[in-house]
């Protein structure tokens, strides 16, 4: 019995010892493991360095350019390896003679990975064959070869293999305002395994902004192996990209490390690094986050967030949505929107009801309306009849109006103009912040969500019938009857029927809408006949808009008749003298 105990103890000790022998190689932050897939461990493929290629050389010697021909990157990889095996220093010297014609692989699907692997293999082999001349030659090639994927190139790839060499021999000491990509990559790679060495090299760059760039590269590198240490190095940095790298590296290392990083970072994290994508990739970490503020707006749902939401099981999705209030406030709206959008693929009504119940009905532009906006948009573009019936049935509110207004253009684009106009309900309340942007609307063109939808709808109506767009403009509230809206239809209408536009303006009620339309008319007319357009300036009632219309005429007139333009402006009535003097001074 005692012997059996000894045998058992020895076996258990062996198991522990065996695990100890192998695990450090996998867990060591210094070793980038590619050994975690069991099939590899059982029968690991031999991966010798590129310089010791053992593949049989092809029957006929190919050039490197020939080796890269064809659309199959995997076959090309084998051919390039075969070329490298027999290449000599002279072959590389010839390649470097004309950097613009240096081989640059570009394979669909494997574009970036192939370029990096190709450059690494070539740089490694070149350096082995010509230790004295290779680096300088590579610098010349990188400068003029224009590799398609950036940052990239021979030195960039070499920086991952031999960072010290790159930092010592080719890293420049800051003639420009940015670190070269190979310097950045070398600092990052070296910092991941030897922080002190990387910091010693970084002393080359003491002046801003290069010092900050070197520091960031080092933090990025350290983050991959030791996120907590990277956080300490980040200090009180405000750069959200630094924290983005750190939290993602921490998340990969598990909840414990992540929690330590999140606690140590606190409010320094800000709202950017903890994105909905992040929460959806790591839902288990959602309750470990500090109480970060919500961003003012949520710009739709990113493809990455949708992908991540798609991979969450329906039960887990239901749990996360049921615990909506427990989600961290920063990424909450975007996270819920992505989950609700995936839910809406199978149960749009239920998802829309949930989103409505968790939205702010009295504030159409609130960030927490993202789920309602995004679900409704998906529903109306896939089953417009059902979505419209739902929209018609919900009680009137600023939220309902915002949902309808934002979705109206999607209906209009499909030719359902009457229904688009039915659900188009821009806020008539001028006290709302005009710069507020509705969720899901990116304000590249400026203006509020309502303004953008108005311009867009006007454009879609005008594509079919510009006069109808004019009639529709006359019905708009002042909040959206803007200059931008007139640009949606008036220039194209004017180009085809200027007299009709002039008659239409006369039918508009006196007010700001009429004035902005008249000013746009003046702008268009001035291109054809500045003098004729000048006669319309006096029809603009608002003094500021009138002066703006006069300025349009004046500048157009000046293009072709500077003296005549000055005479016209001097004689113009109904404008402020100081304004006139300012115009004449320019």
């Amino acid at each position, binding site marked *: 019995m005692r012997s059996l105990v000894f045998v058992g103890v020895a076996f258990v000790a062996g198991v522990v010892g065996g695990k100890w022998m192998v695990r450090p190689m996998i867990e060591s932050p210094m070793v980038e493991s590619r050994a975690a897939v069991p099939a590899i461990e059982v029968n690991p493929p031999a991966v010798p360095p590129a310089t010791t290629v053992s593949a049989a050389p092809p029957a006929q010697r190919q050039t490197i350019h020939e080796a890269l021909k064809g659309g199959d990157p995997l076959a090309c990889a084998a051919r390039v390896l075969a070329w490298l095996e027999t290449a000599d220093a002279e072959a590389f010297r010839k390649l470097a003679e004309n950097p613009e014609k240096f081989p640059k692989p570009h394979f669909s699907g494997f574009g970036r990975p192939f370029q990096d692997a190709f450059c690494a293999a070539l740089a490694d082999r070149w350096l082995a064959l010509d230790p004295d001349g290779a680096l300088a030659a590579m610098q010349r090639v990188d400068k003029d070869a224009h590799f398609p994927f950036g940052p990239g190139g021979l030195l960039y790839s070499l920086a991952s293999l031999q960072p010290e060499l790159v930092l010592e021999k080719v890293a420049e000491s800051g003639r420009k305002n940015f670190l070269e990509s190979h310097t950045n990559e070398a600092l990052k790679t070296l910092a991941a395994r030897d922080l002190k060495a990387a910091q010693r090299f970084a002393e080359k760059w003491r002046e801003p902004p290069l010092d900050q760039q070197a520091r960031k590269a080092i933090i990025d590198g350290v983050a991959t192996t030791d996120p907590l240490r990277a956080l300490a190095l980040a200090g009180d940095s405000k750069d959200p990209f630094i924290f983005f790298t750190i939290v993602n590296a921490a998340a990969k290392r598990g909840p414990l490390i992540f929690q330590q990083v999140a606690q140590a970072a606190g409010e320094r994290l800000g709202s950017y690094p903890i994105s909905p994508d992040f929460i959806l990739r790591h839902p288990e970490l959602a309750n470990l986050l500090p109480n970060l503020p919500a961003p003012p707006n949520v710009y739709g749902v990113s493809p990455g967030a949708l992908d991540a939401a798609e991979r969450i099981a329906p039960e887990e999705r239901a749990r996360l949505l049921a615990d909506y209030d427990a989600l961290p406030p920063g990424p909450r709206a975007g996270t819920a929107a992505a989950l609700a959008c995936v839910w809406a693929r199978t149960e749009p009504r239920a998802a829309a009801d949930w989103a409505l119940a968790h939205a702010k009905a009295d504030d159409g532009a609130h960030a927490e309306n993202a789920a309602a906006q995004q679900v409704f948009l998906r529903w109306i573009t896939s089953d417009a009849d059902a979505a419209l019936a739902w929209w018609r049935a919900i009680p009137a509110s600023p939220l309902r109006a915002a949902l309808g207004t934002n979705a109206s*253009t999607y209906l209009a684009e499909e030719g359902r103009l009457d229904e688009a106009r039915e659900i188009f309900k821009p806020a008539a309340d001028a006290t709302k912040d005009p710069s507020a942007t509705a969720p899901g609307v990116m304000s590249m063109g400026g203006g509020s969500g309502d303004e953008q939808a108005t311009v867009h709808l006007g454009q879609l109506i005008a594509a079919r019938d510009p006069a109808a767009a004019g009639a529709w403009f006359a019905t708009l509230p002042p909040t959206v009857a803007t200059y931008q809206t007139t640009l949606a239809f008036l220039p194209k209408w004017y180009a085809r029927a200027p007299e009709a536009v002039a008659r239409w303006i006369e039918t508009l009620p006196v007010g700001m809408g009429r004035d902005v339309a008249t000013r746009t008319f003046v702008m268009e007319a001035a291109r054809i006949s500045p003098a004729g357009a000048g006669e319309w300036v006096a029809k603009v009632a608002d003094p500021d808009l009138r002066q703006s219309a006069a300025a349009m005429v004046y500048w157009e007139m000046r293009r072709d008749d500077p003296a005549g333009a000055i005479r016209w402006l001097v004689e113009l009535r109904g404008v402020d003298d100081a304004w006139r003097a300012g115009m004449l001074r320019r």
Partner: protein
Amino acid sequence: MNARALFIVAAALAGLAVGARWSSERPAPASRDAEVNSARDLPGSGASDPNETGLGAALSELLHAKSSLRGMAELAGALNQLDSPRVALLLDRLERAQPAWPEQSDERIAWLFKWWLKRDPAAAGEWAQPRIAALALEGPLGFFLERSARAQLVAAWARANPQAALDFARSHPHSGAARLLLKEVRTAWSDRPVQENLAMLLDFPASHARDLALEELHNGCAVRDPAAAVTSAQALPPGPVRAKASAEVLLQWADKDAAAAFARYRALGLTDSVLLSKLLEKRAAKDPAQAIEWLQQLDPAQIARAAPKIVNAWVRRDAAAALGWALENGIRLSAGEEMFFELKHDGFRRSSSMGGGSVSPLATALEAQPEATLRWLQALPAGAERDRVFELAATAAKKPDQALSAFAGLTSEAQARVAATVARLFEKEPARGQQWASSLPGGPARLAAWTGIGALSDADIELPPGLDRDAYIAGTLNRNGLATPLAGRFATVLKIQDPAMRRASFDGVMERYSYRKDSAEQTREALNAVSVPEAWKQRWRDQFEKTR
């Protein structure tokens, strides 16, 4: 060593082996992509199964942070070992491991899918179905989704299965996926007669996807047979698609045979001034006389809109004739173009584009035929018209010598108006510019020239006190847009000694800065602090009150 000890050693060694193996088979939770490397849901475990070996090798290569050529070369062999369930598993893993925003999606997924599609179309198609369905519920495909690995694999599936793709698109006609699928179906069926593809599209449910496909189909037809393409476009139901398709086809036709395109435009009774001016412009580049002949058949408004573009094309071939004709017919030698502003759906967002420019036949002539243009200018008869054209030439010129040649022929009033513009042509020759400004007689033109010199970047010079220096300082206020803080601008204004010029410069600065809503408070503070007469400030305070 006795038997008991041997047993113990053997047990320890066995344990060691099991431990090592166990450890190596476990995912490394702290390593990169630990979550995707997890072996828990891999089917089977036999190392001898080539499927398993292949899957492990493929995953190892594809999930590794940095690929190697060796790894890629070996990937081909690993992939060939896989059966379809393993390929599906491999692609699932890659999808799951895709990098988070802002990294791009992993395009290798699409490549591998295409490879699989050739090898086992049925299995690949089945794997793609839920992804196609998901894409169809994402509305219009925006910038990111259009370029995603998912869109690429859906496109590949559609090219390989056009009928199934068409059927799917018909069941989701209002989706962005329908647009993508129709495009791929047309590519796959590009060898079919055009009429067959047209009938296919006309039978497709009315939708934005169909509209775009019809436009693209006609554009493609125009390359081979533009006459037939116009006829076909005109046979479409009335509406924007017909108008747009017809216009695009006519423009393509005009590149090959402008006369035929214009004749068809007239025969169809179209009234699209924008299209017309583009057609005429294309004709003028090759045969200006005929373009003018056509132009004269139009109404005055159409002539006014189209003529500057025709002259602009004509001056490249015969500047004197073109400019002479323009003057005779009252055509503008410099005019603004129609403002372009467009919003479009970008997924469930909107993106905008805008533009607008100008067309200046005189500037084009000076650039394309400088000597002929200058001779034409010199030959103009004296009078107001000559003065006007000379002034335009002085501001339109891009080279200092041309500008100076025109400048010399100007009245003193006109010289004062254009001197600052001419001075800016000395950007690369600042010393010559200063010499030119110094050579001008005292008066408004000389001061304007010094103002222009002052506006040149990197032209800091010290001038003796006086009006030239004041004008130069006033010019420096035009550098750097609004990047310089207002207080800094005021400090410059206070260096100007001439009271009238100082006041004008003060007002000029305030005019520019008072429009900045984002820094209104700083503007007010700077205005309060600057040491100028209160009367100067009052106008701007009044304006602040008005816009508050």
